[in-house]
C-alpha cells in the first residue's frame, strides 16, 4: 500500500550520444521525462517533425498492410483472442527486423500495391455492372449503338418517358412535325422508368424529327460503341470475369505474405518505438554540443539506472529529492489482492500531493460491498470460476485487464460468501426444482437470514455496514492527520465527528423509533444514556468551536462551526445511501425467483423440463449480467462518493515512463534492473 517515492533525475551529456542515451532510457522504461521545458537563447529544442512524420507514415502503412492481410487472409483466432495480450518476442528477432527494415518496408509497399490492384479491379467490376444494367433494356436492338445514319436516313436511338408506346410516339411526331413522312419507330423495351426507342426518318426530315422527339422528352442513349447492345453486354461480362480472375490471383499473391505477418507486426512496433524516441528528442533542450534531460524515476530504480548510464556514456548525472514545487507523477505499488483495485482507484483519480494510497482499504471494502449487492452464491461461484479460468488461460493479457478480472474474481468469492449467508442459490431454484420436479420441497436454509423475509433487518444490516464504511473513511483521514502531525486537525475534524455520530446513534438506540425498525427494544442503563449525551455534546462542541479555526473573528468562526454542524445532514444522506445494498440484493433475489417461477409454470412434464432449462439459462444469464452491472456501478459509487468523500481527493498525475510502447509484441529484454 503505497505511492512509490520518486527521485528527480538531471542529466547532461554530449550531443553525439543523445540517440544512444535516449535508446537506453527507452528500453529501460523507468524514467518519465519532463517535456515542458522552456527554450531560451542557449538552450534550443530540435525540430524532429519531419522524421517523426516519416516514421508515423511507416507505422500507418505497416498497420494498413496488416489490416489488408487480415481482411483477405484472416488469421485463425479464438473467440477470446482479444484477451491473449501481446506476444513475447526475443530481442534477436527484433534486431533482425531492425537490420532489414528497408527490405520489410518494401514488403509493406508490395502488399499495399496488391490491395490497390484489387481495389481497381473491384471498381472496374462495379463500372461494368452499371453499364450492363443500363444496356439491358436495349438488348433486343440488333444494330450498333452508335448508329446515327444510313445512306438516306437518320437514326435516333434513345429513351422517352415511360408512357410512350409506339402509337404515342407516332402521334407525337404527327402532332409536332406534321411534314415528316415515312418515319419509322420501334419500341425496344418499356419499363417504369423509360421507353427505349429507335426512330428512323429520311435525311431531309432529321431536324424536324429531332425537335418533335425532344419536345416529348427524348434523350439519346448515353453509351457510345460500335457494338450492338448484346455484344457490348457480353464484352462487359467478359471484363467482369477477367477482373474477378485478377482479384483471385492477387488474393493468392497476398496469401504468400501470410508468413510475413509476424515480421510486419515487429516492423510496426519498431517504427512506433522510433517515432516515440523522436518525439522525446524534439522536446529536449540542447546546446551546441550538449543536451539535457530532466525527469522522474522511482527511487528504487535510481541507483541501477545511474550506474548503467555512467558505465556506458560520458555524462553528468544527478539524482535529487523531489521538491514541493515539482508535480511528481504517481506510481502505485500494491500487493496482489490490493493491486487488483488499482483500476477502480485510477478511474476516480490517483492520490494527489501528500495523500496516502487508499487502494488497500478500498479494495477490501469494494469486494465486501460488491458481494453484498450481488449476494447469490451460485452467481458468485460462476463469476469466480469464469474469472479464474480467464486468468489461467490468458496469462499475458494486458495489465489493466488482468487487474480488473482478478478484482472480479475476488468479488465472486465475496458474493459466494454473502449468498450462503442469505441463502440465495439462483434465487430459490433449489426449492422450486425439488417441489415441482421431485414433488418434495427441499429448502436450503440461509446460514444467517433471508433478506426477502425480513427486509427491515436487512436494512439495518446495510446501514450498519455503511456506518462502519464511513467511520473507516474518517479513520483513514485521521491516519493522514497523524502522518502529517496535524493533531489539532485530528481532534477537530476526525475525533469530533466520531464522537458526535457515535453519541447520536447511542441516543437513538433505546428509542421506540429504533425499536420499531429493529423489532427489538434495546434498553440502556442510565449511565450509558448520560454517557451518550455527553459524547454527543462534546463532539458537537468541538465542531462548533474548531471548524473555523483558521479565522480570527470569533463570530465568523462560530458561524462556520454552525455551518459545519449542518454537515450532519450529509452524514444522514450518506448513510441512507447504503440502503442500496438492500435494494440491489433484493433485486437479484426477486428477479431470480421470477425466472424460476416462470420456468416451472408448465410443471413436471417433458416439455416442462425443457422449458424450465431454457428459461433458467436465459433468465439467469440476464439477471446475472444486469445485476453484475448494477453491483459494479453502485459499489463504485459508494467508494467514490461516500467513502472517498470522507478523506480522499485524488488529482495525481499518472507516472508515464518513456518506454517502448508497442502495439503487437513485447520484446524480451536481457537488461534486468
Amino acid at each position, binding site marked *: 500500500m503505497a505511492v512509490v517515492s520518486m527521485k528527480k533525475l538531471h542529466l547532461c551529456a554530449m550531443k553525439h550520444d543523445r540517440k544512444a542515451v535516449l535508446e537506453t532510457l527507452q528500453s529501460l522504461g523507468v524514467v518519465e521525462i519532463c517535456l515542458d521545458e522552456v527554450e531560451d537563447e542557449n538552450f534550443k529544442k530540435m525540430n524532429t517533425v519531419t522524421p517523426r512524420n516519416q516514421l508515423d507514415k511507416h507505422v500507418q502503412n505497416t498497420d494498413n498492410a496488416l489490416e489488408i492481410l487480415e481482411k483477405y487472409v484472416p488469421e485463425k483466432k479464438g473467440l477470446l483472442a482479444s484477451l491473449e495480450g501481446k506476444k513475447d518476442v526475443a530481442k534477436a528477432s527484433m534486431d533482425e527486423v531492425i537490420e532489414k527494415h528497408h527490405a520489410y518496408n518494401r514488403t509493406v509497399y508490395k502488399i499495399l500495391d496488391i490491395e490497390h490492384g484489387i481495389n481497381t479491379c473491384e471498381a472496374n467490376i462495379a463500372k461494368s455492372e452499371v453499364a450492363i444494367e443500363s444496356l439491358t433494356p436495349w438488348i433486343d436492338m440488333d444494330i450498333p449503338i452508335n448508329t446515327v445514319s444510313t445512306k438516306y436516313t437518320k437514326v435516333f436511338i434513345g429513351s422517352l418517358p415511360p408512357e410512350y408506346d409506339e402509337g404515342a410516339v407516332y402521334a407525337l411526331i404527327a402532332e409536332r412535325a406534321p411534314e415528316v413522312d415515312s418515319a419509322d419507330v420501334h419500341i425496344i423495351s418499356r419499363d417504369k422508368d423509360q421507353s427505349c426507342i429507335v426512330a428512323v426518318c429520311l435525311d431531309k426530315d432529321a431536324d424536324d424529327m429531332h425537335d418533335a422527339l425532344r419536345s416529348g422528352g427524348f434523350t439519346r442513349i448515353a453509351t457510345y460503341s460500335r457494338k450492338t447492345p448484346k455484344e457490348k453486354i457480353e464484352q462487359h461480362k467478359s471484363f467482369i470475369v477477367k477482373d474477378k480472375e485478377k482479384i483471385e490471383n492477387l488474393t493468392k499473391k497476398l496469401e504468400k505474405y501470410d508468413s510475413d505477418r509476424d515480421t510486419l507486426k515487429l516492423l510496426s512496433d519498431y517504427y512506433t518505438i522510433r517515432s516515440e524516441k523522436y518525439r522525446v528528442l524534439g522536446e529536449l533542450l540542447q546546446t551546441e554540443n550538449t543536451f539535457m534531460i530532466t525527469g522522474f524515476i522511482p527511487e528504487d530504480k535510481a541507483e541501477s539506472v545511474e550506474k548503467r548510464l555512467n558505465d556506458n556514456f560520458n555524462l553528468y548525472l544527478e539524482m535529487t529529492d523531489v521538491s514541493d514545487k515539482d508535480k511528481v507523477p504517481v506510481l502505485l505499488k500494491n500487493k496482489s489482492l490490493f493491486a487488483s483495485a488499482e483500476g477502480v482507484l485510477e478511474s476516480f483519480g490517483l492520490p494527489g500531493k501528500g495523500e496516502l494510497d487508499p487502494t488497500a482499504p478500498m479494495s477490501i471494502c469494494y469486494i465486501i460491498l460488491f458481494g453484498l449487492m450481488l449476494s447469490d452464491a451460485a452467481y458468485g461461484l460462476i463469476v469466480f470460476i469464469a474469472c479464474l479460468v480467464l486468468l489461467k488461460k490468458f496469462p499475458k493479457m494486458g495489465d489493466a485487464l488482468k487487474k480488473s478480472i482478478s478484482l472480479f474474481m475476488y468479488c465472486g468469492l465475496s458474493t459466494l460468501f454473502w449468498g450462503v449467508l442469505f441463502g440465495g442459490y439462483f434465487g430459490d431454484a433449489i426449492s422450486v426444482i425439488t417441489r415441482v420436479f421431485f414433488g418434495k420441497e427441499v429448502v436450503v436454509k440461509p446460514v444467517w437470514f433471508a433478506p426477502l423475509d425480513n427486509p427491515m433487518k436487512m*436494512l439495518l444490516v446495510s446501514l450498519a455496514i455503511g456506518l462502519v464504511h464511513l467511520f473507516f473513511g474518517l479513520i483513514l483521514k485521521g491516519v493522514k492527520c497523524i502522518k502529517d502531525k496535524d493533531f489539532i486537525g485530528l481532534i477537530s475534524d476526525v475525533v469530533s465527528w466520531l464522537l458526535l455520530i457515535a453519541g447520536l446513534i447511542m441516543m437513538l438506540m433505546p428509542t421506540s423509533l429504533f425499536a420499531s425498525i429493529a423489532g427489538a427494544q434495546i434498553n440502556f442503563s442510565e449511565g450509558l444514556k448520560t454517557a451518550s449525551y455527553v459524547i454527543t455534546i462534546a463532539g458537537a462542541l468541538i465542531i462548533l468551536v474548531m471548524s473555523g479555526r483558521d479565522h480570527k473573528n470569533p463570530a465568523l468562526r462560530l458561524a462556520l462551526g454552525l455551518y459545519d454542524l449542518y454537515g450532519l445532514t450529509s452524514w444522514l444522506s450518506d448513510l441512507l445511501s447504503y*440502503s442500496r445494498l438492500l435494494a440491489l440484493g433484493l433485486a437479484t433475489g*426477486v428477479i431470480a425467483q*421470477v425466472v424460476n417461477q416462470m420456468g416451472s409454470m408448465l410443471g413436471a412434464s417433458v416439455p416442462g423440463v425443457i422449458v424450465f432449462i431454457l428459461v433458467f439459462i436465459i433468465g439467469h444469464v440476464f439477471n446475472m449480467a444486469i445485476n453484475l452491472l448494477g453491483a459494479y*456501478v453502485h459499489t463504485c*459509487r459508494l467508494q467514490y462518493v461516500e467513502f472517498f468523500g470522507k478523506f480522499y481527493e485524488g488529482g495525481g498525475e499518472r507516472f508515464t515512463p518513456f518506454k517502448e510502447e508497442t502495439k503487437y509484441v513485447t520484446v524480451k529484454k536481457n537488461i534486468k534492473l
Partner: protein
Amino acid sequence: MTMGTVYALLGAALAVILSGMGSAYGVGIAGQAASGVVSEDPSKFAKVLIMQLLPGTQGIYGLLVGFIALSKIGVLNGEPAQLSTSTGLLFLAACLPIAIVGLVSGRNQGKTSVSAIGIVAKKPDQFGKAMLFPAMVETYAILALLVSILAVQGVPV
C-alpha cells in the same frame, strides 16, 4: 373479486408500467447517443453500453415491487386474497413511490447518461467519473424503492 383486490393489482401494475416507461425512455435516448459514439469508434462499445444500461434499473425496481405486491396479494399462486377496499388502496399507495419516482428518475437518468456518453466519447479515461453522474440520479429511485418495498411488505393482508 373485491374492489380492494382490483386496487392492489392496479398498484402493482402501475409500479411496473410507470417505472418501465421511465427506463424505456432513458435507455432509449442513451442508446441513441451510444450508437453515435460506436459509429465513430467501435472500440468504445463496452463503455457506452454500460452507460446505456444505467437508466435500466428503474424498470427492474418497478418489477421488484410489482412482484412482491403480486405475491402478497396471492395472484401468483392462483388464489387472490379478498382484500377490503382500504387494504387495496394501501397497496396502491405503497406502489406509488417507485412508480412515479421510477418514471421521472428513469427519464432524467437517461438524459444524464447521454451527457456521460459524451464524456466517454471525448475522454475515455474519465469513464469512472462519467459513470457517477447517472448513478447519482439513481439514488432517488433506490430511496423510492426502499419505501415501496417496506410499505408493501408492511401492509397487513
